[in-house]
């Protein structure tokens, strides 16, 4: 009886993880392609963060990020290098979310308005959005990335671990 329940909950977790993989992949594909289709607009949005004074670095960030997101967004649904991709995305999401938060705090301070009413295009590929909603979305994406590191949900994956002999 207990074994039946445990196997049911395992199946549920596996199904949830596969779904999380697909959702994450779809979100990053959508955001990546959106930016890759409008690189100049994305470049202008990256510029607003004042992260560099160097033309080459600024252009490289704006040129690489959309395609990189698209690449990771492709790997997740097809199930290639899932944990490595999830970790890479988590490591990108964290600093980018901090940058968005910093920008939002600057805007809030400039206008002296409640934090959650700050509404701007952060260059995330979804247009203008209220900051609290954006932060919540990023948090959910980050948690899902971490969840994928558990190694569950290997169904429908082409090559779950790229380094097959080393990863269980």
């Amino acid at each position, binding site marked *: 009886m207990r074994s039946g329940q445990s196997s049911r909950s395992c199946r549920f977790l596996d199904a949830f993880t596969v779904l999380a993989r697909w959702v994450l992949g779809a979100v990053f594909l959508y955001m990546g392609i959106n930016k890759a289709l409008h690189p100049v607009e994305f470049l202008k949005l990256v510029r607003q963060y004042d992260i560099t004074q160097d*033309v080459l670095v600024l252009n490289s960030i704006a040129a690489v990020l959309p395609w*990189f997101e*698209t*690449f990771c967004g492709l790997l997740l649904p097809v199930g290639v290098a899932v944990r490595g991709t999830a970790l890479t995305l988590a490591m990108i999401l964290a600093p980018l979310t901090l940058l968005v938060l910093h920008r939002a705090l600057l805007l809030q301070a400039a206008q002296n308005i409640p934090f959650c009413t700050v509404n701007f295009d952060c260059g995330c590929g979804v247009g203008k959005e209220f900051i609290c909603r954006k932060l919540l979305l990023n948090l959910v994406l980050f948690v899902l990335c971490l969840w994928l590191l558990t190694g569950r949900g290997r169904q429908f994956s082409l090559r779950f671990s790229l*380094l097959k002999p*080393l990863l269980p």
Partner: protein
Amino acid sequence: MANCGCIVGSILREAALVAAIGVAFAFVGNQISPRGLALARNYFPTGITNMVRAVVGADSLAGALGINSTTSSLAQQLAAQMRQNGLQLIARREAVQLFYDSHLKNNAIVFIDARNESQYQEAHIPGAYEFDPYHPETSFPTVLPVCRTAEKIVIYCSGGNCDDSESAALLLRDVGIANGKIFVYGGGITEWTNNGLPVETGARNIGNTQSLNQ
């Protein structure tokens, strides 16, 4: 415990591999994309760090919320930045005067829209030429001869946090258009339409003119 460390190490190695292949994929993607960025090109002749931007980002927010507290400081900063770059800023009143000037018809006065193609098609000041400063090569053949013969050139973009009109003005100046006849309309299409002034949709001079704020 050792197995756990081994798994973590393997995930890190896999992540590094994904990152390396991903970056390579991204550079190739950008290279083969017809819209890809030229990595060495300076897309912002006004400077990567733009002193107006911080205020302006806040200003567009204020606009969305119906607050007008930063508008005057924004206008001052914009004017200061233009002066610093040797450009002349004009207000709506002057832009409207030039628009209704009879010289507009014989191209002695020309309006230049410094936004992208889709924004231009959506609505532009009637008779304005399209000139996207991020893709100048596509517009130069049409715009340059007109600018060379014009007596006054009015350049605008969206207004607010947009400094594309300034970029366009600097590009035109760089290719030899006299600085004295270049004017930047800072309020841009947003201020223009908000005041019920006429706009044209689609291509230039096809006669599809209307007022968006009626």
